[in-house]
Structures are given as C-alpha cells and as structure tokens.
C-alpha cells in the first residue's frame, strides 16, 4: 500500500513544501493546488512514484487526480495490475 505518509515524503523531496500549507494535517481531500503544488510539482512527484514502484499511471493523472486521496487510489490500483 502506498500511504498518505509515503506521499508526503515524496512531495517534500520532489517539490518542496509551501509554508502556507499544512502538509502534516488532514490533507487527503485537500486539492493539491491548495497545498501549493502546481502541475509541474505533481508531474515531478508522480514520475518519481512511477519509477520507485515500477508502475505506470495514466497520462492524465496529474490533471485528473486533484487530491491526495484520488492520487493514492490511482497508485494503489496501478500497483494491483501488471505494468
């Protein structure tokens, strides 16, 4: 399982952290934009996740998965299917 804590860690590493956002709070249903992450920040993080876990996410995942919960769903679904 890829957890929200795994995501926090990689977001920090791949894109940094917006001082105005509370990344350690309840973020599952907060939109990435509100957390201070633009599409490039997500692109950088998603490509790292794909690489680390040897999975392939849909091309439109960055524009479609607008919250951590939706991104986690995509990641865990992808982990269950053959790459």
């Amino acid at each position: 399982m890829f957890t929200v804590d795994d995501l926090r860690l990689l977001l920090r590493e791949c894109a940094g952290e917006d001082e105005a956002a509370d990344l350690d709070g309840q973020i599952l249903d907060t939109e990435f934009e509100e957390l201070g992450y633009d599409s490039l920040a997500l692109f950088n993080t998603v490509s790292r996740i794909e690489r680390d876990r040897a999975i392939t996410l849909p091309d439109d995942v960055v524009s479609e998965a607008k919250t951590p919960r939706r991104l986690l769903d995509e990641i865990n679904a992808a982990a269950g299917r053959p790459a």
Partner: protein
Amino acid sequence: MTAPVVTGIGVVAPNGVGVADYWAATLRGESGIARITRFDPAGYSAQLAGQVDVDAAAALPSRLLPQTDHMTRLALLAADEALADAGAELGDGFRAGVVTAASGGGFEFGQRELENLWRRGGAYVSAYQSFAWFYPVNTGQISIRHNLRGPGATVVAEQAGGLDALAKARGQLAGGAELMLAGGVDGSLCPWGWLCQISSGRISTASEPGRAYLPFDEDATGFVPGEGGALLALEDAEVARRRGVGDGYGRITGYAATFDPRPGSGREPGLRRAVELALARAGTRPSEVDVVFADASGNPAADRVEAHMLAEAFGPRGVPVAAPKTMTGRLLGGGAALDVAAALLSLRHSVVPPAVHIGRPKYSDEIDLVVGEPRERPLSTALVVARGHGGFNSALVVTK
C-alpha cells in the same frame, strides 16, 4: 527619455553577500577569488574562481529548491534584497517587471539532469529541467516570487549584458512601467560550464589567487571567472519623487551599446564609440565624470584598447579608474550590474574602491588606476564600461 532612479540594490558577490557585506569587503580590498571547491578542478587548466558560498536554501522556500540552479537561488536573494531596499508598493504587479542579463542559464542543474538522462534514463530527469537550465529562468522565477507581472525580458551579451539589462528596463519605464528590477546574477561553476569558459582561452591558468586576474598590469594573463552579480530596482523618477524617495542612489542618465567590427578588419573596436555616445546622451562632458568603472579585461590586448581609449576620452590620467572586479572575478552576465551597484555606492559614500593585486601597473602614463587603498573624494557622476565576449560594448552613466 527621463532618467530613471535607482531606489534599491541587491548584491551577491564572491567577496560579500548583501550590499553591506559586499561594500565593506570591497573597501577593505578583500578578494573572493580562491581555488574552486564546488567541484574538483584538478583536471582543468584553470582552477580559480570567485565562488559565492551562501546557504541560499536556508533563505528560500523549500518549494523553490528542487526547481532552481545555484545561480538562480543567488538571483532570488539579490531580488529579495533590492525590492526590500526599494520598499515600493507594487499593487497588482502589472506595472512592475524584470529584466535580467544571462549567459547560459543553470548549467549545474542542467549537467546533473543530463547525467541522469545518460546514465539512468529519461524517467530520472527532473520535470524542472524544462526551465531550470533555461537562460531566462531568473527573470521568470523573480517575477513569480514577487508578483512582478509587467514586462519581463532577458538579454544575452556576456559582460555587456549587465548594462544592457538596465537600459532595457529604462525603456520599459519610459513605456509606462513604474518599477523594474534589472541587472544580472549569473554563474556556471560546474564541470560543463567550466569547460565552456576555459575553452575560450581567456581564463587565467595561474594557481595563486593573488596572481591570476591582473588587469592593466605588466603580468596580466587573462581573468578569473566568478558567480554572482547585482539587481537594481529602477523606478520612474516621477513615481519615486511622489512616494518621497527622491533620486534614491542616483539616476541612470546615459547609455549606449556598440558592436565591434569583424576581427581582422583593422577597424577600431567599438568601445570608444559606446563611451562617447553614452556621455553625449547623458549630456555629460568627459570632464564631469568623477570615476570610471573599467571593463578591466585582464587580457593584455583588450587592456591596451581600454587604457588608450580612456586616455583619449578623458586625457592622460584624467579620471580615477576603478576595478573592484579584481576582488570578484568576472561574473558573466552579472559583472557589469555589480559594477553599477559599486558605482552607485561610490557616489553615495564619496569613495572609489581599490583594485587589488596590481603590483606592476602597465599604463600609469595613461590611466589613474585606483590601486591598493580606497580613495575618498566627492563624487557625482560615474561611467561604467563593459565588454562582452563576441564584440559587445556597452557604457552607462549614473549621476547622484
């Protein structure tokens, strides 16, 4: 065109980060030139540089760190300082913009990601490679960070670019902008960037920091590259007056740029014409110039051209000549902007900073190079001269 005023200065230099530290070190004659530590220079013909080793990461939001080259971080520090110094209210940001001078962009970042691509594959390349190594990146990052949503541009003319950026910003002020942040912070101290620079054959191969960059000296053998530069907040004179900051550090009263004739043509280089045009446009007679900040190439042939030109334009030893860049090295797109900052600080504090390490001045009959100790005297007008590799000449006049 009304002369814009400089209301804020931000400096990152090898001998001092921040205006106060830089200026104090410069008056003390403290050099920032040393053996490179950013990477191992052992295999290269040249091993000295003016490095800026500051913990920029501690001063910037972590969101910016994965997406910035070292030189962009330095530029962001200078922008912070210049805008805080100016203290202007920028409203919605549409009447404020940025012009930076650049050379190659973020070479160190670019090299790292190209290495990732080559060794490990495309999946290992940062998405931020898309802009972090791009030459106008500093203009973009500064405008985003400070919400400067007006005109944005980048000029590329090596050393001359630092002056050209200020001139372009002046044009934007004439066109309706109220504040422009302009100048240059540059640098590419990584193996890739280093190789590009030393292949020019103009870089000093001396190993002793005090013997490597000796412009206008009998022992001149080239120059030492460095990183850093300065950004200036330029404001429309009327806008500045209305908000009570008067002429700030001084006004930019004249500027000109020329291009050298084809090598081998036998025609005179364009440097003299740039200086004469800048003075004419400023309405300043040579006798009214109190100090010249020289390009100070360190290349013997180029030094000779500049020394002769200054002797002809101002008379033999007709004006004090400053070369504080002997303490920083030449900073690509950032060098001339730093010289303008130094010129404005000279006007403000009535003192000409010294050139260091000059033991055997070669042109003593022609130029009055200020060497060793700062020289105190009242100063109202300074001329800054810059030459960029490839034939660029620019000159800019600032007046208190």
